[in-house]
């Protein structure tokens, strides 16, 4: 493209030099009219020009231009709509799997033996209460075998061992035996229902100082067959920052900010996420903080963007709950150290009205940059399509005419 542009510009310069400078203005008109269709259309080849594509080929080419237009239009329109709110303050409807981060992760898979093959006649229902574990936290595991029709199959846990995964050649970690039971105690809510549960608390074991993936291997027997199952959790034994003070709120630049104070022991990039419900308990927004923090006290702002409040019209007051965060370490494995989790309600806003809440769209250099580029692409795609066959209309845009 740059090479073609350079050639075109050099040709224009040469042409200007040849013709002199006295008739500059009309020349632009001549040049601009050069690409316009001229005269009637003929099916036969015009001497000196390449043969036009066959009708089917021409239809295919136009279809491709239509697809490019559709893609460019969709890219522009969806970006314009999606970026009305900042990346750190989004509707909860756009984050369906982030609503309840502390609910157990459940799976149902075919039972697997040592041969790695699945047995579709025996399904294993499993759950684990967490995947990432902060210092001092516990994780509960459970498993139950069922037939495809849902009937419970008696199961016996024969061995359950947890250990840290280490790289090959590295000294192995302590192995921690876990007790799984179906007696209605501990992590097992119902006795005798065929579901066996066990709890791992790394801080109370020889894995207290281990940072990384702890794998729990559970061996069991169901319907006379031996099975093996693994649960992985990623444990973070150190606390990089602690919560201090009382959370507060403020109306800042037309948005509602939930402000939490952290005492940062280890500086770096912190990613903190909080969930905001409306007064009726309906999940409303997901707020994410992602910035570099220095050592010492720092305010972490979880923002409910003003326009998001205006558009969503939530029942006030809003409530912040379930805040989790971590220090993100670049190019490291493990890549994070978890802050203490704030589980459940954190702060109920005192804001009872929309007074002072802005309905302005989010704006930033990033947004302007993207919209400028995508608008240029959209305009170019529309022009290419229109020029290819001026007799056919450009399909309508999803978000208004091209400017």
């Amino acid at each position, binding site marked *: 493209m740059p090479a073609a542009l350079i050639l075109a510009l050099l040709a224009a310069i040469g042409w*200007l030099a040849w013709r002199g400078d006295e008739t500059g203005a009309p020349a632009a008109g001549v040049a601009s009219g050069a690409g316009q269709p001229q005269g009637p259309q003929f099916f036969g080849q015009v001497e000196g020009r390449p043969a036009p594509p066959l009708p089917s080929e021409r239809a295919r080419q136009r279809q491709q231009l239509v697809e490019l237009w559709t893609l460019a239009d969709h890219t522009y329109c969806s970006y314009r709509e999606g970026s009305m709110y900042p990346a750190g303050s989004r509707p909860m409807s756009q984050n369906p799997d982030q609503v309840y981060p502390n609910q157990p992760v459940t799976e149902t898979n075919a039972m697997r033996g040592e041969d790695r*093959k699945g047995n579709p006649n025996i399904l294993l229902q499993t759950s684990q209460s967490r995947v990432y574990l902060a210092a001092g936290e516990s994780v509960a595991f459970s498993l139950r075998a069922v037939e495809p029709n849902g009937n419970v199959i008696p199961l016996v846990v024969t061995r359950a061992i947890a250990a840290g995964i280490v790289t090959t050649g590295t000294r192995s970690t302590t192995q921690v035996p876990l007790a799984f039971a179906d007696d209605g105690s501990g992590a097992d809510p119902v006795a005798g229902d065929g579901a066996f549960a066990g709890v791992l608390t790394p801080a109370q074991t020889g894995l207290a100082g281990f940072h990384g993936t702890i794998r729990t291997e559970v061996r069991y027997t169901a319907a006379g067959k031996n099975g093996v199952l693994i649960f*992985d959790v990623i444990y973070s034994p150190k606390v990089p920052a602690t919560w201090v003070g009382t959370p507060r709120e403020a109306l800042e630049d037309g948005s509602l900010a939930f402000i939490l104070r952290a005492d940062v022991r280890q500086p770096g990039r912190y990613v903190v996420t909080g969930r905001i419900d409306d007064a009726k308990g309906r999940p409303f927004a997901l707020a994410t903080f992602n910035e570099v923090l220095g050592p010492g006290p720092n305010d972490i702002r979880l923002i409910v963007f003003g326009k998001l409040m205006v558009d969503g019209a939530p029942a006030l007051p809003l409530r912040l709950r379930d805040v989790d965060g971590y220090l993100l370490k670049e*190019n490291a494995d493990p890549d994070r150290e978890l802050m203490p989790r704030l589980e459940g309600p954190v702060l109920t806003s005192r804001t009872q009205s929309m007074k002072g809440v802005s309905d302005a769209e989010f704006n930033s250099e990033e947004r302007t940059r993207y919209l400028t580029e995508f608008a240029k692409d959209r305009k170019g795609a529309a022009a290419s399509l229109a020029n290819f066959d001026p007799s056919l209309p450009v399909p309508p845009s999803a978000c208004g005419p091209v400017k």
Partner: protein
Amino acid sequence: MNKVLQMVLAVCLMAVSSFAAAANYTLWVNGRTGGGVVGNYDSWNYWGPGTTAAGVNKKSVNWDGRSSVASQSGKIRDALDCFCTGNNWCYVVTHSAGDLIMGYTMANYGGSARVKKNATANSSGVCGDSDGSAQTGWNIKWVRAASGAGGGSELSDVGSWTTSEPLVQDLKTTTARAMYNHNTTRSVWFYMYAGAKGTAYSGVLPGQDDEAVAYHSTGGVSGSSGGSYCNPSDWLCNDLTLGTAANEGGSLKWSYHSVSFRDDSEAYNHYANGNWGGIVGVVRSAVVNSAL
């Protein structure tokens, strides 16, 4: 040379220098095993012959395909800094775990300050600064994911005991899905291409799969764990829908994830086979037509 001609020349030279600095690039991010020379953006070993068309100004973004995505994310950031800052824009194509590492990079670093680069890389894949200024995030027009493993693969759930490849640990379904917020793409679309020519691991991979990754991941289905999704011809399993629509059964896709291709004829497996094969070939065709 008269005055007007001098002015025209000056304007043209400015325009040339400005336009010459703006280009579109097509970045290809590999999956597990790797194969290309890390840091060499012209090393196409993972994908196929480097002479094959694969989008405008194609660049092979190689990472080792074995280490954790966290430890290798810097390689992706280097490439994005190189070719997707300043006046340059990128189309990004991923295969398998390339989806996981791209999603991780976007979600965690997509809003970070990036120093604008000049698209000229050293042997480590790091480019020189352009004008010393910075911008927020990268310039990315869209991402196309061939057999995206952002949701993990059940093949990793049957891993070995206490030593295993770090990337395989990352690809455990529960881990991959908890690793970052997959909905955070900064309004950039991930177009998903899901293959279904898989039989070898049908007892392990739920629903339709391409022999390595199942539809729940290749179709960008949201959730903290996987699930069983199929083609419409399978009446015993919920359909993976095209586009952004909720799947049969009601499950949703991650935001800004759209299924562009579902392998209804079960014709495409997971593997490029060093010749742009399998589901990679389907994506390549789409890229050639749209990464201009």
